[in-house]
């Protein structure tokens, strides 16, 4: 089974034995609750699925693990700049065809009563601008695309 994590994609295929799942020195007991055993110490852990994401709480850490459906492309989205949250575009600072450097401000949007700046993730040329000032955008909406030089 494959997950997208903040550290990249990882595959894991634990051994199953009834309600017990094993992976290296870790044992997970899936019953009415989730109990993880590490080196014979047991810890209560928590998990819930929202959309494609498994959210896990283990030993004070919270992880978000996106399930990758088998057969899905192994490519990460590249060159796209997406809205980090729903909000309104306040200002577009570039034009299509313009050359920009990594870190250049491209757009300004407003959400949660704060202004947020969308900056270039790498050097490139503005390929397409999808929204203009005043428009509402949803979270994850592609705002503009940058092609590599």
């Amino acid at each position, binding site marked *: *089974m494959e*997950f997208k*994590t*903040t*550290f990249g994609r*990882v595959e*894991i*295929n*634990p051994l*199953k034995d009834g309600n017990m*799942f094993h*992976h*290296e020195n*870790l044992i*997970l007991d*899936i019953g*009415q609750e*989730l109990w*993880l055993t*590490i080196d014979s110490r047991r810890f209560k*852990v*928590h*998990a*819930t*699925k*929202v959309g494609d994401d*498994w*959210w*896990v*709480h*283990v*030993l*004070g*850490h*919270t*992880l*978000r*693990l996106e*399930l990758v459906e088998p057969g899905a492309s192994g490519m990460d989205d590249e060159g796209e700049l997406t809205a*980090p*949250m*729903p*909000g309104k575009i*306040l200002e577009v600072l570039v034009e299509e065809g313009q050359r920009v450097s990594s870190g250049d*401000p491209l757009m*300004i949007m*407003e*959400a*949660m*009563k*704060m*202004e*947020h700046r969308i900056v270039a993730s790498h050097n490139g040329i503005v390929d397409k601008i999808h929204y203009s000032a005043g428009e509402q955008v949803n*979270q994850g909406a592609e705002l503009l695309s940058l092609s590599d030089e």
Partner: protein
Amino acid sequence: MIKRVLVANRGEIACRILRACREAGIEGVAVFAGNDSTSLFTELADISIELKGEGLTETYLNQEQIITIALENGCDSVHPGFGFLSERADFANAVIAAGLIWIGPSAEAITNMGDKMTARMTMKAAGVPVIPGVEVKGGLAEILEVAPSVGFPLLLKATAGGGGKGMRAVHSPDNLEIEAKAAMREALNAFGDDRVYVERLLTGSRHIEIQVLADSHGRTIHLGERECSVQRRHQKVFEESPSIALDAQLREEMGEAACEAARAVDYEGAGTVEFLVTPKGEFFFLEMNTRIQVEHPVTEMVTGVDIVREQLRIAAGEPMSCGELQIRGHAIEVRLYAEDPANNFLPCIGELAVFIPPEGPGVRLDTGVRQGDSVTPDYDPMLAKLIVWAPSRAEALQRMSRALDEFIVLGCTTNLRFLRELCGHPDVVDGWTTTDMIERLWPDGWTPDMPSIILDAGLLIASACESSGMGRQKRVNLSTTGESPSPFNTISRRFP
């Protein structure tokens, strides 16, 4: 005598005020926008009335509608909480003109303190030291003109503002114009006023504020200080009382200055006077917040004074009930935000699929959300304030760490782990907290320190749950008898 209060706010502060009303035997009337119809604070009110319209301007900022609802529902008073209309002198005047009691200071005091330029001038006149800077009366052009004389780094601040909105640090002349425009625009959106002023950015300073209370019987007192130095994006995340930077003499000097500030504007009610304190122990007036403050609980826990209840007493014309200042032990508050500290503390949205607050001695949670609620971009991303009290600062940090270890939030990214690491950081443990400490400690941004065994465990858990069909399973049997509770367990639960 106050009998029925309209609470012109939402979220955790509305909950806080409504609980205080309930305890005081006063009825509480909540007003809520359509997207808040099932929010916790509407449950805690005696009466909840829906605000017509959409967006902040038509709902929580709609003075006329709110006053009409107050009158139609037999309210005798209005509590504005913080944010929203709390520092709008015109609203205070409109409330009073409608024959209602305004639970706050006079419109004049709000005006004098709310306009940061006037406040600076009033404080200068009263002999309270202010930060070197320039009051700008014109627009962008004047900002660009005066900035060099203030010097870099400098701070642009909304004249009418607060809460970090319309505030921008500028470290070099290159960014001045874009930051000035952003600050003016944010200020206009947040406060309807785009004036900005320019101040010297005092790095390495502490942000320390004094809580004051003044009643109509001539008594003005202070309740000691709160240290609120640990900030990101000019918003506080970690507050405590008392501050280790103050000795009894400095506390008394600053407390007296704060009372002077309050007296200078004939202040009545609860207010906060903010200061910057330099490493040398000089203090400069920053601003006065003419309302209850987000971080008021730390003062409540060390002084034993119920500040919101005192607000109700003062507004009713009664004397304050609290006696001599008695500071005991140490209190810390951290703010749980729906934000991604690993991505420059950018706000996040999501669903609080799991929200399990900590319990146990000395722990207080002020929140307006509970499990099952959604975090939307409509409102401020602060989910909760977690406050602890303990006999000493060291024990309070230990207790906060323990409480954060128990806190579980799944379904929305939060700053929980960041707060946990913050509480264990040697600089925080040593008390070396300054307003620039987050940039100082994590100049390249914060990333969680995650041992590989944690990632392995997370992957094991997710894959095991997924392959067991937990993600699509319809129901889990809670009881041992084969009888399942209704799904209403799920929808009716509440974690106030």
